[in-house]
């Protein structure tokens, strides 16, 4: 496969830089820093050291034997990013970008966050590196993910609830971009996914590739061959791109991306641009997008704050068009059922985002069996991108696990209603 993106940041017809001119110099500086760092043995050794001694890499590959019956009998292997420091894959990218920030001589970092996982990872790295940290988070998401708001503040970050537009990840990203345009000389914007203007989709992918590199080797060691499918959830798409990328040239490995199907893709109330959107430009790149007839960004619906985003990384758009990866929308209800199944069959409480991947993996396994394949021959690797502590409140409400009175009196509810500054 030829090197992608090209030198101007295009993945085929996607990607590029659709940004205010004011940001171009900073994007050029970042591109140069990243390209230099990729081949700098000092940089890569330092990043490796951090990933090993601080983030806890390599993360294990867990054989999920009891889950297998839910996937038509296929063997399911879990790539345990939920065990990485801060509880998700986001730390991989953030440590890389923090090192780049240091190299560029910047002292202030900003980030956007949806579910709060990227915000927590960024706040963590900033504490470690001594950077000033500001995180933009949609007001709606600060309510859905109050625990992560508290975590970020404990780590010394300033969390700014964003009240414009839809008050979710899209608008948090707008505000972060506006901050960046204003303070670009002193500030690095740590984008949390494979979205945004070039070089971000490439840079974040490069820092997340470690997931797939490890998983591929671990699968070879454990099973003696490559998996039949690799499944990951896709919001912006960083955990998916991280695990997909090292498998791109393994033609026998199906790559399945699970988008947020919300109330069901057929209802129009979802967050699945690759499944049901059309090409457009948002947040600096051309990719698939949920939009109306006039090109206004459409409202999205998902139980998962981390997937509740109308856009998606441009490299996914290319993989969708080429057919190398397949994307599907997983409805809220099906994802929540998968979350419950994983918890009860394996003792792993995953993030709601991640649960979309398990639902998709079960669907894929059953479809293979329905098509006449022998399930015992199938191996599926699922990227377990994050842990579900932050989602206990949402899940408790969804499944009715606590009574109304208990909910009203719970610390979490109080944290929602009286957010600490």
């Amino acid at each position, binding site marked *: 496969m030829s090197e992608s993106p090209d030198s*101007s940041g295009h993945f085929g017809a996607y990607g*590029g*830089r*659709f*940004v*205010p*001119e*004011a*940001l*171009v*110099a*900073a994007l050029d500086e970042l591109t140069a820093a990243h390209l230099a760092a990729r081949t700098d043995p000092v940089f890569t050794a330092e990043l490796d050291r951090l990933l090993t001694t601080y983030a806890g890499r390599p993360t294990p590959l867990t054989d999920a034997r009891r889950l297998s019956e839910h996937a038509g009998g296929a063997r399911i292997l879990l790539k345990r990013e939920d065990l990485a420091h801060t509880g998700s894959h986001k730390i991989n990218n953030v440590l890389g970008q923090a090192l780049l920030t240091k190299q560029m001589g910047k002292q202030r970092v900003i980030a956007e966050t949806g579910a709060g996982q990227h915000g927590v990872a960024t706040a963590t790295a900033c504490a470690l590196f001594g950077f000033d940290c500001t995180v933009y988070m949609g007001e709606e998401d600060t309510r859905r993910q109050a625990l992560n708001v508290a975590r970020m503040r404990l780590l010394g970050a300033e969390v700014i609830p964003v009240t*414009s*537009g839809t008050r979710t990840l*899209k*608008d948090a990203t*707008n505000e972060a*971009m*506006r901050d960046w*345009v*204003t*303070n*670009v*000389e002193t500030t690095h914007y740590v984008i949390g996914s494979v979205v945004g203007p070039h070089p971000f989709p490439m840079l974040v992918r490069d820092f997340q590739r470690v997931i797939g590199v490890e998983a591929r080797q671990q699968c070879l060691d454990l099973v003696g061959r490559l998996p039949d499918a690799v499944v990951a959830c896709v919001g912006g798409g960083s955990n998916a791109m991280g695990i997909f990328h090292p498998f791109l040239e393994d033609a026998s490995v199906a790559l399945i991306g699970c988008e947020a199907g919300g109330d069901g893709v057929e209802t129009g109330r979802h967050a699945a641009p690759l499944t049901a959107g059309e090409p*457009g*430009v*948002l*947040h*600096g790149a*051309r990719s698939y*997008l949920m*939009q109306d*007839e*006039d*090109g*206004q*960004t459409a409202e999205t619906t998902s139980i998962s704050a981390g997937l509740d985003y109308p856009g998606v990384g441009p490299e996914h758009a290319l993989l969708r068009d080429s057919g190398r990866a397949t994307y599907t929308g997983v409805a809220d209800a099906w994802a929540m059922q998968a979350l419950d199944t994983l918890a009860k069959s394996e003792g792993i409480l995953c993030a709601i985002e991640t649960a979309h991947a398990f639902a998709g993996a079960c669907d894929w396994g059953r479809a293979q069996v329905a098509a006449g394949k022998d399930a015992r021959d199938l191996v599926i690797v699922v990227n377990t991108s994050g842990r579900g502590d932050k989602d206990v409140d949402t899940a408790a409400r969804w499944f009715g696990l606590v009574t109304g009175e208990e909910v009203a009196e719970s610390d979490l509810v109080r944290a929602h209603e009286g957010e600490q500054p």
Partner: protein
Amino acid sequence: MSQLDELFARCRTEGRAALVGYLPVGFPSYDASVEAMTAMVEAGVDAVEVGMPYSDPLMEGPVIQAAHQAALDAGTRQADVLRAVEAVAATGAPTLVMGYWNPVHRYGFRRWAQALKDAGGVGAITPDLIPEEAPEWLEACRALDLDPVFLVAPSSTDERIAVVGRTNRGFVYAAAVMGVTGARAQLGAGARDLVARVRAQTDLPVGVGIGVSTGEQAAEVAGFADAVVVGSALVTALQTGGVDAVRRLAAELAEGVRSPVRN
């Protein structure tokens, strides 16, 4: 000679800067927005930027963001933008659209360029499009004799300013402070330097957007730029005092660009 070329030639003869006014279509209503744009031309605005409302206007500060959102909430559509261009162009003032790229992309940029031309528009300012991403858009503009206007910023290198200078027609738009749009009590010192850097790369006129809200500030910017671009202050005027307030502010600004302070 394009309408913008003629305007800048006339301003040079008169020893003054041009006044460019911005208002978004559909705020507070379609009719009021068009009435306000027409009124500001009558009061001395030389060229109009017709704002295309967008759900995610990255370069805008709170005032224009809120106006875009209100316009969309009121049901403003792309067809309304083109209709507004037609109405404003009928005043005789050069009329451009200021629009983020996705609505144009969605419409089909060639078809949109044709529609803009048909409505009497002279060009488009595209705040989130850079020349590198725009070769086909430039072709479409050339074919229809529309003026594409890209921006430069204080962070732009001289090489990039040169690219914009070669690419633009009409004028170069210098967004002279780092940050989003909005009125500023104190104009930044960097604008003068940026204009000088642009002049070193191109003979095109330079329009400066920097948060001007008073006649005095307009006179100050007119001292070193070929055009003074005013947006947020006009939106605020429309919001708080209606069309009359827009007329008053436009007249004050027009007086300002006719009294350039050179130092």
